[in-house]
């Protein structure tokens, strides 16, 4: 496999704000990579840097081996759809869809038409009069139908309801299976998108917090539930990522359990389950580490 995106010491500051700070990572060709993080973590800035829409303050990024800034060789192979994409005032949905094939050489107009039906998008409406969800759907349609070698989708389904979001996941996966490419998907709806992801990059406060294979990451931590005394006995000196306690029942999340550990925990009456990606990331990026509640 070859690297399609390669960032080294990539940094972008806005005055005192370090939106992206000394970030290094490699994304290989042909996978769906989740760029996860909280609002304001630096996801959009990072994607702007990858597509040459913004300029790094320090460090460098290479896409297909080249600097993406003002580089048509890179950009004609790239499609970046962002939540905040602005459209010309006078554009209706159909103007956007008629324009897209000129800019994205692999654009499939038939697929776009089918997606318009699927999402029930009013293409004759002025884009500025569309709801947030409809604008997102428009972006998602362009993003999927463009079939660019490198597709970046930044919060592509803001404002879409659950049904439409699942439609989006289905269509994206379907088309990805038929036409493999590299997709970078940023989202904060981690659990929803988790099944799609081969690879996970978590950005927090402008830095890469986690850079791992999605399956490996899921295996790194487990949640144990049981009587508080049993839990304490089992945990011993292990490092606990999170701890919750309600009355006599406790739940802890611990890292690095081997298969034998899990078997031992089960035999001592504890319930063992793999931690969800969302839980793991919430805990690693500063969400409520321990939480105890005493029953009254």
């Amino acid at each position, binding site marked *: 496999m*070859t*690297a399609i995106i*390669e960032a080294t010491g990539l940094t972008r500051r806005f005055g005192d704000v370090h939106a992206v700070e000394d970030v290094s990572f490699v994304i290989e060709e042909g996978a769906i990579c989740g760029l996860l993080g909280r609002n304001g973590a630096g996801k959009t800035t990072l994607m*702007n840097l990858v*597509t*040459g*829409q*913004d*300029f790094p303050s320090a460090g460098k990024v*290479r896409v*297909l*081996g*080249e600097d993406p800034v*003002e*580089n*048509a*060789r890179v*950009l*004609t*192979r*790239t*499609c*970046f*759809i*962002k939540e*905040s*994409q*602005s*459209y*010309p*005032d*006078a*554009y*209706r949905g159909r*103007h956007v869809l*008629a*324009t*897209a094939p*000129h*800019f*994205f*050489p692999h654009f499939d107009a038939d697929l776009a038409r089918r997606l318009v039906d699927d999402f029930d998008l009013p293409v004759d409406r002025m884009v500025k009069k569309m709801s947030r969800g409809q604008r997102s759907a428009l972006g998602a349609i362009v993003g999927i139908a463009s079939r*660019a070698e490198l597709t970046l989708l930044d919060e592509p389904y803001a404002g879409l309801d659950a049904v439409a979001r699942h439609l989006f996941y289905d269509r994206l996966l379907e088309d990805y299976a038929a036409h493999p490419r590299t997709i970078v998907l940023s989202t904060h709806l981690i659990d929803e998108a988790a099944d799609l992801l081969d690879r996970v990059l978590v950005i927090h406060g402008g830095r890469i917090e986690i850079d791992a294979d999605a399956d490996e990451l899921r295996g790194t931590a487990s949640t144990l539930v049981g009587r508080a005394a049993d839990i304490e006995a089992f945990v011993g000196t292990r490092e606990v990522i999170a701890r919750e306690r309600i009355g006599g029942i406790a739940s802890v999340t611990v890292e690095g359990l081997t298969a034998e550990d899990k078997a031992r925990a089960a035999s001592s009456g504890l319930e063992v389950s793999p931690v969800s990606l969302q839980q793991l990331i919430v805990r690693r990026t500063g969400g409520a580490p321990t939480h105890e509640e005493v029953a009254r």
Partner: protein
Amino acid sequence: MTAVDAARPEALIPTRTRVLNVARLHAANPWPTVILPWIVLLGVHALTWSIWAIISHYAGPSLEPDAFRYAGGVSWLVIYMMIIAIQAMNATFRFALGFASTRRDYYLGTVGFFSVMAVVYGVGLALLAGVERLTDGWGMDGSFYAPAYLYDEPLVVVGFHFFALYLLFVGLGSLTGAMFVRWKAMGLYAFFGAFSLLLVAFIWWGTDTGWSPLASFLTGNPLAVVMAWTLPVTVAIGAIGFLIIRRTPVRG
């Protein structure tokens, strides 16, 4: 990755097509840039004509022969297109970059689009001025499309005048738009601050010299030459606009 050098892949879309694509993007909905201006212009013309008709009805033969030669309705078009250029920069820059254009392709395509429009408006207005002359000033001895100092000029000069004037104003509009896209409100303060300073310096220079060099330049040279002098100014404005755009990040 070391194999960047020898076999660098070509861009999937050739340069000329990319620039053309951006130009097309401005015309995807031709209503505000191509159709509406002519409708409003003809509307203003009709209104002006009816005012002429009312005046000449009541004034009768006492009317001076050049009474209807100073209509300013056509200048509206130039201001309108300047605003369109400002808006176009603001609305289409982020869109075009979102659709994977480079800033260079974007700027060339935009300049190309407005240059073609300058030709269209120059030729269109010259043709209308021709009709005006053939119809004895729309039957009223009025001049709407070639008023004031254009009244005695040949149609070619009338057309060139509008072409150059249009380019100058669209250039100014694009520069304003570029500064807004790059620096937001601060860009506009800087633009109008610099513009006021230039204006003050210009008035100072004019008053200092008694306006005679300017007056002799304007009266001593044929209109075509005066208008031709706006072209290098427009090109300079366009070049400054490009320098601003090529380092503009996409925000928001």
